[in-house]
């Protein structure tokens, strides 16, 4: 195992990842500390692509927490659990990261982003998008399934939970103005240059759309959640597709989104 994948902050990283936050305030706290640590990863320091994503994710989670405190959600127990489960998958990916090719526990879609931490430099927007893609297209459906399973309810359209879930799109919209309308045409252009299933994934309205895809995928996974091998296959499939998109985002092509 490569012990120095985080360079001089290896120790801080390991210590931080010992923690398993179990509520939203603790998730925010952990993301804040992570932000500080990531800023010390050489050679790019605060310019590294994971920093870009983490910063965005922190902003979004703070937005969620604020709304939770303000009583803005219909089913806060659901949303809190979801937020914690969601974050746990990001922290798991970080925990599993031991360098390219030697991280069997790190999903490919995250590995794509993590291996770009030392460079070559990519632009902040595509970097953040790559993280968002990994987190939403891959982690989110599973976080949803676990949350519903734990709470003993199911993913039903137009339910309180679905309503709360969609509410987060507003937070995304304010947090990533760069992803809004103006960029969509460029996204579409980029996607059009690709063949295959990516086209189905990434048409329409970036984050909002993918988040709904995640909801649909969660419903699909929900139906097969007792079948371990089917779930495994689905997971591998999601990982592969999302990783394909990440490679594209982090390629020189992705820079033109900026």
């Amino acid at each position, binding site marked *: *195992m490569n012990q120095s994948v985080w360079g001089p902050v290896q120790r801080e990283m390991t210590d931080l990842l010992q923690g*398993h936050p*179990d*509520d*939203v*305030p*603790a998730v925010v706290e952990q993301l804040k500390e992570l932000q500080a640590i990531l800023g010390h990863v050489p050679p790019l320091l605060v310019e590294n692509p994971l920093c870009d994503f983490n910063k965005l994710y922190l902003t979004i989670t703070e937005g969620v*927490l604020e709304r*939770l*405190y*303000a*009583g803005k959600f*219909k*089913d*806060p*127990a*659901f949303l*809190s*659990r979801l937020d914690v*489960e969601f974050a*746990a998958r990001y922290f*798991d990916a970080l925990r599993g990261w031991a360098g390219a090719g030697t991280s*069997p*526990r790190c*999903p490919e879609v995250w590995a794509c982003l993590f291996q770009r931490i030392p460079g070559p430099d990519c632009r902040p927007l595509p970097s953040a998008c790559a993280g968002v893609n990994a987190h939403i297209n891959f982690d989110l*459906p*599973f*976080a949803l*399934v*676990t949350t519903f*399973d*734990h*709470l*003993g*309810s*199911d*993913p*039903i359209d137009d*339910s*309180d939970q679905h309503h709360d879930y969609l509410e987060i799109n507003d937070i995304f919209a304010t947090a990533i103005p760069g992803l809004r309308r103006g960029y969509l045409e460029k996204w579409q252009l980029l996607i059009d240059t690709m063949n295959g299933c990516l086209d189905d994934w990434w048409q329409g309205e970036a984050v909002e759309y993918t988040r709904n895809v995640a909801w649909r995928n969660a419903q699909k*996974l*929900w139906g097969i*959640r*007792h*079948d*371990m091998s089917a*779930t*495994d296959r*689905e*997971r591998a499939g999601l990982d592969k597709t999302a990783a394909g998109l990440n490679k594209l985002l982090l390629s020189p092509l992705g820079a033109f989104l900026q």
Partner: protein
Amino acid sequence: MGTRVTTMASEEEDGPLVGRADTLSQVQSDLRNAGPGGTSAVFVTGESGVGKSRLLRETAGAMRDAGFAVLSGTCLDIGDASPLHPVLQALRQFDHNVRPAGDAGALLDRVSQDLRAVAGDRRLLLVLDDLQWADRSTRQLLLYLLAGLGGVEIAVLAAVRAEALQGAHPLRKVLAELRRLRSVRVVDLAPLDRDQTVELVTAITNGRVEPEDADRVHKRSGGNPFVAEELARDLRDGRAELSDTLREIFLSRLAELPPPAHAVVHAIAAGVEPVAHDVLARVVPLSEAELIEAVRAAVAHRFVASAGDGYRLRHRLVAEILAGEVLPAEATALHRRFAEALEEPGATPDHARLAHHWQKAGEPSRALPSVVAAARSAEELYGFTEAHRHWSSALELTADGAPERTELLAHAAESAHQCGEHLRALSRLEDLSHRPDAPSQCDLHLRRARYLAAAGRTATAEAEYERALEAPDCSPRQRASAAAYLAELLLHLGRYADANARAVDALEMAEVNGSTADLVRASAALGFSAAFREDPDAGLAVIRNAVDIAERSGHPDELGVAYLHLAELLTGPLNNIEEGVLVARRGADRLASLGAGRTYQTRLLAVAAKGLFRVGQWSEADAVLETAMRHRPSGADAVELLLSRCQLWVGFGDVEAAHRDLDAVATLLAGGGARHVLPMLTLRAGLAMWQGEHATARASVQRGLTETRSDDLVLIGVLAWHGLRAEAEAHAAGQPVDPGALRRLKVAVERMVAGVGNAAVPVRAVIDGYADLCAAELSRVEGRQDPAPWAKAATTWDTRRQPYPAAYSRLRQAEAALQRRSRKAVAIGALREAYATAIAMGARPFAAEIVSVAQRYKVALADDVATVPFPQPQDTDELSLLTQREREVLAALAEGLTNREIGERLFISERTVGVHVGHIFDKLQVRTRVQASRVFLTAA
């Protein structure tokens, strides 16, 4: 029984255990160190081949040597295993065959009894391999046992494949929650590093290995000991070319196997492990001698391991390799032979296994009876999740035209509903409605409404009930039932006027045509809706009548429901706690005399205990809870009782017991259940405050605030009070107040106050009480030293007849007044009153707080009571510590008299009796009247 090849794969066949010595001793010590609840658990995770099973085996051996009773079970990956399979299988090895019981809780109790019987006076170690394949029932049983509910001093050691935890596997969540407990450890088994791999290779090759070869083994195995070991064996046996993959290793070995051994390996691969020798003999067409020879070869080539109960493939990784090697036609034939072998007369029917083989044999029609039988036996064990899966596969096995499909759909829908698969239940019901021989329209609407209501889709559920009522084929009985359910639904939605109107109709219909259950349901809806609409007497009369009706029917469930409704109405909206407690206890006694309705007895006692707590009769509440716990509750009922008991421990100041119950609650909640999280967090905050741990108290409250629904006004009130109190205590202790937390708490209070106008009157009264407490704490946080808001809070809680919050308010009122040096006499009066209440309840930390305030301002707490309470008992006769008066009270108490009766006999007030009883408890260091009586009777 035929001959068996046993113990061939014993320890000497295993390679040496390298690099795990520290883990091994750590695991053993973790298992030995039981938590406060007497239980402990270690979950070992890691990739396939990393050595989890080996670690389990080694640990089990060492623990057995250390005097533990060891029970081992393996979970199956056939997906549709029977409920509780690994534990029941393990118990069978000790000749304990667990039979179905009266309800799901009774079944858990029965399993626990068997576990206790196996353990005898030893501690029990339950070892479970491949836990990722455990069914839902097994997971629930584990949590039940680890929470200490089974009364088994158990240590659990389980292995989980890391790969399984990556997606949305339920264990992922369970482990994430459990790992926070002190008695649970999750051990992640890492691959071996280079040096350890070299050590392993050197040991296997007896040192005859080139360094670069050892290096290659490390590279190719990635430090996976299973792979490294097999590669090293190839090296030792002088295979020319070191294989690149595990697959190559085993394929080349497969080629060397003699044909009969080849057949044995393939057969075991197709079987469900362990494959018993006699079953194998029927599957593989070999003579006894040939079979034994073949098995020996399979074991020698390290494909197969043999144990007392049968044969297994040596490793899951081997099974995966073999899976790709067997032709589909070959596999089909093997499954058919297994099915036939298992069906032979004399064999105990294992429906789940049989169903699996017939399905894989491509014989749906032969599989169907087994699948149906498996579904039914799963239902007998309350494994509705498993049953639902069996019913679903039964449906897959039948064509659309098959006549039995209608019945199967009905079962599939109902079992899906039972296990909380609401979407599935509804879609099955949809299919059922399209059958030519579907149930009546009314029946379908009723079921759909029930499923929708369970899924929380209340608006559509309401519409379905309406449709059922309008359906032309609706019988009078069904109509009464639909109306009663609808009234209940409306009540839950808080639409009291609608509920009331509907309940009146329902009751009318039920009186003529309904069942007792419908009558009780309609009466309850009417009673509660009336109470919430400020007509409590009308509501009470209706529910009392329902109890009479249930009494006449004598059916335990109906009695239980009726008593429960009456007790909840009295202790809840009517706030007539004394009578509510009486009703609850009478109901529980009534059911106990019938010897039935265990669940309802538990629930009734829970209501009684809650009421007793609120009116300040804590020792009585303690005794009631003790009785209730003896019913060995499970699930949500157990969580409720544990929370109530923990509330008492916090009040009594028994920190250890409080932590124990909080851990038990957390263990049970790891399996799901959101509505108990907030009460748990509140208790955690309350306990932390008495211990001066402000950070913990704050964090619990802040988390609670993120999870409170904006319409849960009472919960917001309790939490906000705890949060503000934590800030006030921090302020008083000279620590900084958290401005962010304070701002959020204020927002929460505003939300509560804003919402109070929409709440029903009885709820409003409670919220007002908390709003008063919040306002008063806020004055303390702001350093205002104002007795007025506290005096107001005390009055509000006096009106509610809840002495604890009232006394707490008096303490703060007195403190503020003494600080200001104003109205000292009133302050002293308030402080003494608070002290008397605290002593009567046995509220030690609270009393200690009062004493410290009294000492700070040099106030004597009572004329005849020492300022320093709770003198330590000396080494003399226990009763010698008591005053003459206290002895008289104790004597009367031991006769079973109530405080009022004692007061009447000794011509003192009931409250004074309470003070004496409090002193007696403290001097004798007991908590309940029963315990005090015991001390008296032994000493006298």
